[in-house]
């Protein structure tokens, strides 16, 4: 009796205690801000930049739209412009041959995937005692959204005939975080704070 109790209690403790993880509420309080830059570039050499105001690019597997408009796009681009202006660059229209191009876009991914398992003893599909084991289907869904910032040198093209990427920033995850609208706008400031290289 006591042995059964010990074994069952042990199993319960094992299931309850073996791999606890932080709660989603704890994890998603703040967004992750990651930046990187090309250290062969002298950011002092640039004077002007351009940016599509009030519009963000959109790459999503749930909609055919390629642009994100509205208040969020307006706030994000305004925050980028404020930071670029503060670093000494001058905003110009893209028809005025700017040195730098600032690109901001959202990448949203919604994924559903399934696993199929056959609960059985000894790996067999058919049990002579219990008949066929029916497959168990587990369905998982995940949704993630990242705000991507890119700064390109419009005076230099790569061998693939693309403008040279000299700085980038990732801000995520906007899908699961608490108050992603305000926090992602504020995170743009952080992307610049941790990128002291940007500036004249």
């Amino acid at each position, binding site marked *: 009796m*006591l*042995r059964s109790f*010990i*074994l069952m*209690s*042990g199993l319960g*403790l*094992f299931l*309850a*205690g*073996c*791999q*606890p*993880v*932080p709660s989603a509420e*704890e*994890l*998603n*309080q*703040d*967004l*992750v*801000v*990651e*930046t*990187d*830059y*090309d*250290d062969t570039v002298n950011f002092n050499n640039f004077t002007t930049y351009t940016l599509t105001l009030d519009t963000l690019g959109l790459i999503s597997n749930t909609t055919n739209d390629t642009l994100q408009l509205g208040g969020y796009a307006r706030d994000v681009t305004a925050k980028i412009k404020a930071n670029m202006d503060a670093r000494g660059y001058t905003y110009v229209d893209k028809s005025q041959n700017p040195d730098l191009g600032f690109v901001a876009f959202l990448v949203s991914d919604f994924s559903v995937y399934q696993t199929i398992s056959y609960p059985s003893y000894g790996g067999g599909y058919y049990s002579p005692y219990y008949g066929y084991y029916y497959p168990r289907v587990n369905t998982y869904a995940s949704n*993630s959204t990242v705000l991507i910032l890119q700064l390109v040198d419009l005076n230099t093209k790569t061998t693939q005939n693309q403008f040279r990427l000299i700085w980038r920033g990732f801000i*995520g*995850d906007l*899908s*699961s*975080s608490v108050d992603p609208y305000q926090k992602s706008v504020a995170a743009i400031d*952080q992307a610049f*704070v*941790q*990128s002291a290289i940007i500036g004249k």
Partner: protein
Amino acid sequence: MKRSIFIIILIGWVNSLQAQYFDKTYSLALDVNVPLSNTDYVNKVSARGFKLGYREMINEKLFGGVDFTNSTYTKHVPRKTYYNGTNALTSDLFNYVYSYGLTLSFDYFFSTEQKLMPYAGLGVGASYMSYQQFFNVYSNKNDSWGVLVRPQGGFLYKLKEDARWAFLAGIHYDYSSAKSKDFELDAFNNLGVQLGVIMLEW
């Protein structure tokens, strides 16, 4: 006459009890651990660990068997910026270490037929450590295996001398050679206290 027979039977029963030695034990204990190394990575007391143990008698005072243990160590690092060359990352971090141990263990009991049974022992076996770091929806993971050495001591306490179960209280020190290259962590040491129950079988 009846009273004499009853006393004779009672004495015989008590004598047979005194002659009984438990030869197997099953134990379950809550295992509370404090990390002693890598405290920059994890520093909180692990209160959700446990130990499952099994022993068989080798001789009257020496028992051998296996222990399976599990504990989880954590630390929350507040939001800050980490620089690595041209790369910078700002986040708060939740550092976790999931520790599993399976040891061949031997315990020497200084006395076995009393209510209080102190013991000292040693366990040697395998250690599996899963080092994980959570930040927002992202995570890093690095698993490693190593050798686990666990000197331990404590006592069993029976409420009655002929009880088939006892309370268990013990203390142990663990050395695990399971390092993490990715997180640049050294061998893992911890000090633990175990409180639980043990079944005595004969």
